[in-house]
């Protein structure tokens, strides 16, 4: 069973699939270790591009487990990993410039368990949520700054399964105001979770709006309840469906602007196959 396998991998590798943990941590250079407030990546940006590779392995999941040593060698391309690191470094820099103090857990940083939740493995997710919550508490963490919507959502769901009372905040909620690094018109592909589940749609939109770029909107493409998913969450279940949704979404967005901006690493990874995609943290500072 996939859920059981993911859970086992989480215990063994600290990630849903075997991975060299240095891929997750090498972006951070001079961030203090630990502390009451941490920036929490859940290794999402760093491994988003691998979701494509690993979705191909899912039908052979049981074998993948026995080939874990080999699977551990699978890494994002140099270009992909450098870009992910730049995004995380930009986020970190923006926070620091605004006086936000935070630490980082480096190789101790656990994965959030989001994939278990999103695939409906609620028992495994609940069990894992307890482990992560205990770990955060042992570390004395009081506040978590998330950088992606899947992690943010997973943490907020912890309280359905365990006594999770740590403050969770998205990094863009701490920015106040930002300046655009690019000029002209952009179209925002909303994260489904931020937009429709977490109530953050207006936070990043208003930051972009005041940054100097012009957001192009269309009721049927970028409306709160009309803007589509990138297809990413369904990739582990049905690659073909995921890719068709992504292709369709890019076609819709391109009609409005060539500059497509996302706020989620999974959207970034899934849509990037069909067009050049920019992350929020690449277009503002």
């Amino acid at each position, binding site marked *: *069973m996939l*859920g*059981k396998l993911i859970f086992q991998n989480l215990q063994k590798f600290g990630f849903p699939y075997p991975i060299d943990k240095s891929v997750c941590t090498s972006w951070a250079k001079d961030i203090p270790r630990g502390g009451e407030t941490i920036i929490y990546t859940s290794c999402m940006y760093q491994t988003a591009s691998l979701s494509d590779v690993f979705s191909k392995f899912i039908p052979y999941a049981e074998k993948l487990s026995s080939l874990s040593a080999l699977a551990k060698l699978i890494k994002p391309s140099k270009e992909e990993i450098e870009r992910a690191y730049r995004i995380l470094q930009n986020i970190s820099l923006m926070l620091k410039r605004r006086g936000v103090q935070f630490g980082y857990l480096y190789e101790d940083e656990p994965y959030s368990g989001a994939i278990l939740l*999103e*695939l*409906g*493995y*609620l*028992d495994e997710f609940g069990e894992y949520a307890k482990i992560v919550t205990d770990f955060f508490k042992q570390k004395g963490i009081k506040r978590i700054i998330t950088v992606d919507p899947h992690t943010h959502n997973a943490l907020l769901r912890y309280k359905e399964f365990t006594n999770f009372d740590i403050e969770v905040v998205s990094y863009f909620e701490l920015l106040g105001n930002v300046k655009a690094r690019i000029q002209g018109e952009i179209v925002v592909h909303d994260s*489904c*979770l931020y*937009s*429709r*589940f977490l109530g953050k749609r207006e936070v990043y939109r208003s930051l972009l709006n005041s940054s100097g770029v012009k957001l192009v909107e269309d*009721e*049927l493409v970028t409306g*709160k*309840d*009309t*803007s*589509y*998913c990138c*297809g*990413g*969450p*369904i990739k582990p*279940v*049905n690659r073909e*469906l995921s890719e*068709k*949704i992504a292709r*369709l*979404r890019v076609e819709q967005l391109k009609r409005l602007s060539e500059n497509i901006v996302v706020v989620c690493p999974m959207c970034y990874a899934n849509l990037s196959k069909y067009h050049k995609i920019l992350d929020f943290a690449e277009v503002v500072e």
Partner: protein
Amino acid sequence: MSEWDIAVERTINNNVPRVYKTLSQYPYIQDLAKELRKAKLEVLNNLQKYVEQTMESVKRIGGNAYYATNVYEAREIIAKIVGKNKIVVLGKSMVAYEMGLREYLKELGNEVWETDLGEFLIQLANEPPSHIIAPAIHMTRERVVKLLREKLGVEVSENATHEELVAIVRKFLREKFVRADVGITGANAIAADTGSIILVENEGNIRMSTVLPPVHIAVAGVEKIVPTFYHALLEATVQAAYAGLYPPTYINLTSGPSSTGDIEMKRVRPAHGPKEFHLVLLDNGRVKISQDEVLKEALLCIRCGRCHLHCPVYRVLGVNWGVPPFTGPMGAMWSYIVYGDTKPATLCTHSGNCKEVCPMGINIPRVLEKIKWIANDKERNKT
């Protein structure tokens, strides 16, 4: 672009802005939707009581009421009423499709015709419906031209307009309505206090199916029961608005067989319309679901079909997502409720658009998450 891509894009462009416009032009509809949700929840929390009340009410007004625990029982009940060698006209009903009624009655030697234009096209093409209120949305105009030409053997111009195509079907079905022995419909809502059923439509086929034949049979899931006559009217209003067809051309009310009070104000049945009225209430998994706090939300669905047109998975997979007639986000829930099929739920991307646009406020992704969990739990117990 595939035929499906073309057809669904045209449908979305026609329908979605129209619903927004309706909701803004008639702001009271959103309040009615909230009121309806409360009333429907009241029924779901006391389902047995309301089923009993409904059956008593139907009998009190001269009709016959039946309760079927599964589709086999329901089909048998209906088959006994219909008999053999009859002409049967059907109004579009998901429950009739759920029980395979059309084919079953045909096997018994009856001539059976769908009368909703979309469902009629589906019948001619021998295909499953792709959308709950517009079952033939996967067919382009060009496809309909070809279909009518091939199946009805009539002259249809390559460039026939939408209006001309509708007129051809009108002519064909008129003769069936007049000769029909039995009319079978679904029910958008059933009032427990009066035993009345409400049907919303635009074409006029429901009116003819419920009035011209001497026997009218309504089939509906138990979740269609609402506490009062007033709530049944609310459901018709809300359903039409969120389906993008507001005001609906017709709202049909049926309370028992036809009647008159014209001689000394004494109410006498029948009059000009049907001599018999039968209501078949179907469980088929619904009662069990009503006892689950998360899943029971699915039973609030009023079948407006709005969630379909906001869903990225439906946009890509169309009729191939869900077990017909239960397609789309609502269909992913209902495929589990009535067929026990958990697979459609596993294809939900939890985009959340469906929960945003659902008039009943159903958190569809949360319901589908629970169904995914059920699927995983079954899998877990196997290993």
